[in-house]
C-alpha cells in the first residue's frame, strides 16, 4: 500500500528536520560559549542528510541524518584582553557559529517540516476517503 509508505517517508523527513532544528538550537545557544565540555571553544554542529530506502521493495526514499559533523570554518577571534581565556595578544577564540547562517537554516528546517506535515495530512485524508470506498 503505497499511501501508507508516504507516512514513513514524510515521517523520516520530520525526524531529520527536527534533528536539524536541534543542531541549530544548539549552535545558537552556544554562539558565545568560549569553553565547551572539552575545554576548547564550541564548534558549530551540522547534520548530514542522506536519502535512504526505508523498506525492501519500496520505490520512494526517506531521509535520515547519517552523521553530525563539526563545522570546519575557522573560529571567530574577539579582542578582549581582560578575559581569562585571552591569548598572548589579547584575543579570545570564540565559536565558529554564524548566527545569520543558523537563522536561515532554522527557517528552512521549519518550512520543510511544515511541507512534510502537509503531505502527511493529505495522505491521511486520501486514506480515510479510501476506507469509505463503496459505503
Amino acid at each position: 500500500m503505497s499511501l501508507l509508505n508516504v507516512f514513513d517517508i514524510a515521517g523520516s523527513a520530520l525526524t531529520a528536520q527536527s534533528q536539524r532544528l536541534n543542531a541549530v538550537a544548539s549552535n545558537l545557544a552556544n554562539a558565545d560559549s568560549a569553553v565547551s565540555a572539552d575545554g576548547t571553544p564550541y564548534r558549530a554542529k551540522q547534520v548530514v542528510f542522506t536519502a535512504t530506502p526505508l523498506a525492501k521493495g519500496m520505490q520512494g526514499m526517506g531521509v535520515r541524518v547519517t552523521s553530525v559533523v563539526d563545522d570546519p570554518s575557522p573560529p571567530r577571534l574577539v579582542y578582549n584582553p581582560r578575559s581569562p581565556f585571552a591569548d598572548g595578544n589579547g584575543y579570545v577564540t570564540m565559536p565558529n557559529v554564524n548566527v545569520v547562517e543558523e537563522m536561515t537554516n532554522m527557517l528552512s528546517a521549519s518550512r520543510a517540516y511544515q511541507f512534510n506535515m502537509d503531505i502527511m495530512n493529505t495522505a491521511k485524508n486520501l486514506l480515510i476517503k479510501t476506507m469509505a470506498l463503496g459505503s
Partner: protein
Amino acid sequence: MLSALDQFFARPAIALDLRAQRSELLASNVANADTPNYKARDFDFSAALQAAIRGPRGSQGKLAVERTSAGHLDGRSGAAQGADVKYRIPVQASIDGNTVELDTELGQFTDNAVRYQADLTFASNQIRLLQQAVAGQ
C-alpha cells in the same frame, strides 16, 4: 462471472494504485528536498496507466525479469509495479547536486491527490451502479 467483476473493478484499482505509487515518489522528493545529490524522480502517469491496462505482459515495464516457466516469480507485486520511473529535469538546479524543486513537487503532489480523489469518486460510482443493479431498482 467473477472475472467479469474483476475486470469491472480492475481499471479504477490500477489507477488508484498508480496514483498512490506516484504520491509515494513525490513525497520522497519533498522529504529529500535538502539532501545533497538527491535527484527528484517521477513517472508519466498516463503512460504507466496504459501500460498497466494493456495486460500482465505490458504491466511489467521495461525492466521486467524474463520468465521461462510459469512457476517463476516476476519479482514485482501489484498491477502498478511496472511504472517507468525517471529523473526530473530541474529548471534551476542547486549547487549541491539536488534537483528537487519544492514548488513543482508540492504542485504535483496536490494535483495527484486531487486526481486520486476523482478516481475514488469514479470507483465508488461504479460500486453504486453495481449495487443498484443487484438490488434491481
